[in-house]
């Protein structure tokens, strides 16, 4: 039986974020949809972005992100609290995405949206384009296309590690927990994936 709200607990604004999250999780486990709505809002962008960088498609990312949150709510009872809710949620999203990509294999389609306005003003990217690339007239959109093509050439476990670490900024330890392997494996996958990417993008990375 789902309930919409639980007025008994009022979150303390001075409480640390983890305590607030634990409270939200506890309430959501009891069927409090308002609490779960808060959790969805907290993580929707990060979960969405990870899935999007893996699939390269906004529609698939939207569907899979929604599925992940729905699945997580249904499975909240089995959440023991051994890891953080955020790690557990990521794990569900990662598994869903990898399963989806396996089913979609050989049906590659890439429909990337335009970059946001800030990309043209990112100092790192400006420097990269103006100084590092051999063809100085390379555009951001072309670079984006090549980058995504290179990423899609990686295996799913390798792409996942690069996306989580180099794009999303997730730590090695957290990735190990999310993906379910040890830190050494995360590091070696990251190294291998970067090597592969460097090879694929050699023309755009020459000094």
């Amino acid at each position: 039986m789902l309930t919409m709200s639980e007025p008994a607990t009022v979150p303390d604004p001075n409480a640390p974020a983890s305590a607030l999250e634990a409270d939200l999780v506890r309430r959501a486990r009891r069927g409090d949809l308002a609490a779960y709505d808060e959790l969805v809002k907290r993580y929707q962008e990060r979960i969405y972005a990870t899935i999007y960088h893996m699939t390269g498609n906004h529609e698939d990312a939207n569907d899979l992100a929604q599925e992940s949150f729905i699945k997580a709510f249904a499975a909240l009872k089995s959440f023991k609290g051994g890891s953080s809710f955020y790690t557990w949620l990521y794990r569900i999203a990662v598994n869903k995405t990898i399963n989806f990509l396996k089913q979609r294999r050989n049906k590659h389609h890439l429909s990337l949206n335009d970059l946001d306005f800030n990309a043209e003003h990112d100092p790192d990217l400006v420097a990269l384009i103006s100084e590092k690339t051999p063809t100085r007239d390379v555009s951001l959109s072309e670079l984006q296309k090549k980058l995504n093509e290179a990423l899609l050439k990686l295996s799913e476990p390798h792409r996942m590690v690069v996306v989580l670490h180099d794009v999303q900024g997730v730590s090695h330890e957290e990735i190990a927990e999310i993906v379910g392997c040890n830190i050494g494996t995360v590091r070696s996958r990251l190294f291998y994936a970067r090597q592969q990417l460097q090879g694929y993008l050699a023309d755009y990375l020459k000094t």
Partner: protein
Amino acid sequence: MSEKNDNFDDLKHLLKLKRHEIPPPGYFNGFSSDVMARIRAGDTGRSESLLERLQEGSDFWGNLVHLLRVKPGIIGALATTACLFLLASVLMLDHSESDQADTLAMTAPPTPMITFTDTAADPAAATPTLALNPPDAGITVSTNPMSSLQPVSSMFGSSDNPLFQPVGYVPASQ
């Protein structure tokens, strides 16, 4: 393999480009409400495989499934081990059965299930008696066909037996 020694700086900068691939503003305005609406409607997500359910069931099963997924060779190794184990079990069972049968055939002489007493020596006991094996002998099973053969005479007696009468046919008209 340390990150400092490897020159991936350019690549890392290039990968930052991915951070700018974000949906347009307002994209997430209705996201959580869509999720909530689906939960209220009783949606539990699309049907999923047993593997997927196991993954979220517990850490142990999740790790196992993940391991099998990342290293599919393990599945082959496990399957090969299981097949070898099964084959070895069948061979051992077969071997032990034949050994047991040979041992029984060598140690236990064949004993007829039904014996007839010697009527010549004791006419009073001219009825067939069922001589069962002693209880401690148990049930003996042998795959050796020779060990279970009984002499014909032991089953029907000899011509001295009064119960043994030759069959003769005399036509009624004579």
